[in-house]
């Protein structure tokens, strides 16, 4: 068995290609991670200096006066996303229960498909929908219309994540309960849901965080507000809206506040993502 020269060159080329591709893959992964590091580092670097107790607890001040905070936007975000959760959670989890626990052929399949497709509907289109459905008939921008938009964005995420959570529950647990004579609905509510409650909660948290960071549907629903408001029927400030408004304004002081608000937003979103990952780790990473 002797290799001639041509074979040797070919082998060397194959091995070189193997190494080269490996380096390219490693570099691509490193590039993606370093972009994350650069963006995060910049947000922390620019935002950290401005964060203080008064930034979190005071209202916006006119330009040039100094100080001022995002208290109204923080509370506004919590109100709008909170109301949205109240609307979206029963629908999302109820639908997921139907999809996973009752093997309905066409309805289950089409709802799941719809949920998958609707995670890709642009947030701004959902905003237009909420505008046409709530703002136009009511005649004014309102916190409630923002909640409707967020609820619409949250439902597909909740349906998918809750179904993933329900899948984690072994069938034997259901069978054990049913064999003891427990009705199906009690099995689901008292045995299946508590068993995967942690995964359910993190799915909720994920949907909550997604909605919290979304600015575009709020442009013409919640609209934003420089003053204190907790009424659902009036325009309300939210954190991502404040970032957008401040970023496009020509004042350095507002830019600094936009960075600080971004840092807070990113922090909340990252905590939610991390918790989600911890809960689903068993299934996603073997």
């Amino acid at each position, binding site marked *: 068995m002797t290799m001639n020269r041509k074979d040797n060159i070919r082998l060397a080329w194959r091995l070189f290609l193997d190494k080269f591709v490996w380096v390219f893959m490693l570099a691509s992964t490193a590039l993606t991670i370093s972009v994350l590091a650069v963006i995060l580092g910049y947000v922390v670097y620019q935002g950290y200096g401005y964060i203080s107790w008064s930034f979190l607890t005071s209202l916006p001040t006119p330009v040039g006066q100094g100080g001022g905070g995002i208290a109204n936007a923080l509370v506004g975000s919590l109100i709008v996303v909170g109301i949205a959760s109240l609307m979206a959670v029963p629908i999302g989890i109820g639908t997921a229960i139907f999809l996973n626990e009752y093997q309905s052929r066409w309805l*289950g399949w089409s709802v799941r498909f719809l949920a998958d497709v609707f995670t890709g509907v642009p947030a701004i*289109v959902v905003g237009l929908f909420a505008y046409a459905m709530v703002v136009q008939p009511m005649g004014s921008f309102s916190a409630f219309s923002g909640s409707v938009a967020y609820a619409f964005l949250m439902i597909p995420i909740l349906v998918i994540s809750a179904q993933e959570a329900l899948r984690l529950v072994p069938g034997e647990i259901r069978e054990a309960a049913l064999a003891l004579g427990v009705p199906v609905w009690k099995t689901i*509510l008292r045995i299946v849901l508590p068993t995967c409650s942690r995964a359910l909660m993190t799915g909720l948290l994920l949907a909550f965080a997604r909605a919290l960071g979304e600015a575009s549907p709020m442009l013409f629903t919640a609209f934003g507000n420089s003053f204190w408001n907790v009424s659902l029927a009036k325009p309300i400030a939210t954190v991502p809206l404040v970032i*957008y408004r401040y970023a496009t304004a020509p004042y350095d002081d507002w830019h600094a506040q936009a960075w600080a608000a971004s840092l807070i937003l990113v922090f909340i979103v990252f905590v939610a993502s991390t918790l989600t990952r911890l809960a689903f780790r068993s299934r996603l990473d073997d």
Partner: protein
Amino acid sequence: MVHKTAESVAERALDSLPWKVLDPLPRSPSDHAARRDQGTRGDKIFYAITKSFSIFVIILAVLLVVYLVHGAWQSIQKFGWHFLVGMTWDPVAEIFGTLPTIVGTLAKSFLAILIAVPISLASAIFLAIYAPRWLRNPLSYLIELLAAIPSVVFGLWGLFVLVPLVRTWQIWLKAHFGWFPLFDGPAIYGVGVLCAGLILAIMITPIITAISRDLLRAVPRAQMEAMLALGATRWEAVWKAVLPYARVGLVGAVVLGLGRAVGETMAVTLVGGNAFRLPTSLFDPVHSMASQIASEFTEATYNLYVSSLIYVGLVLFGITILLGLLSQLLIWRLSRGQVGILE
């Protein structure tokens, strides 16, 4: 008396069980039947409730389309299909056409895909096949974090960091490669197709990576092992056995990324330039559909204007839903619903 006490003890024992699902045991045949009926009635009610929620989700989707069409109706009636090819957007003369924004959106999105696809597929292959286990999970987690950053934060970063950077590149490219049509644009703004494409590429890379990684993980190990046993190098095994197996799904992942890029709003509004014209080079500041809606909607002063913006939204919805359907079908065909699409 003794009998009764024993029964109550048994009842108390049942009550103290860790789960409180079991009702006390039935004591007579009629009691048993009543309880069974109660159980089936509860089942029926519960089934009806969850089923109605599912139907409500479908109704909600239909409502979205109905309200969008209703909101855009005035503009649809006035401009019809010509809206899609119209070159004029003149709120003063009340003439609306949206071809330049459609072209602008597609230009930015395809640029983003061009940049993101090689990088994200390479990362996905690395994470799914090459990386050792201790490295795989932390890296996947970091890439998912990148996907979780809110759009407006990308926009803020893009506006203050990327735009000045892109402006210096533009000046250099224009000076040295100005003869090339794509680089023969205004090199003074920074904002424009190039900058928006870059920020979109950053935003969709983690999405394509995560889904492709899951798809590649779903390829049976035997596919690759058979090639390796025949003496192939690792790359040859990946290229000839793993990638062809997952090809359909990977195309789906890319289409999904394209859909996200097309619908992306805040970041593109902040760095896209927002000028209403057809892009002729990479440096032109142009609107995309989402940024046009975002920046003009609150300034729209009369019904036809609002209606036309909703019409733009309807077109955007149509494009993204087509891309979404296509990507779901491709991904589902391969994974049979095992790959979750939450990113």
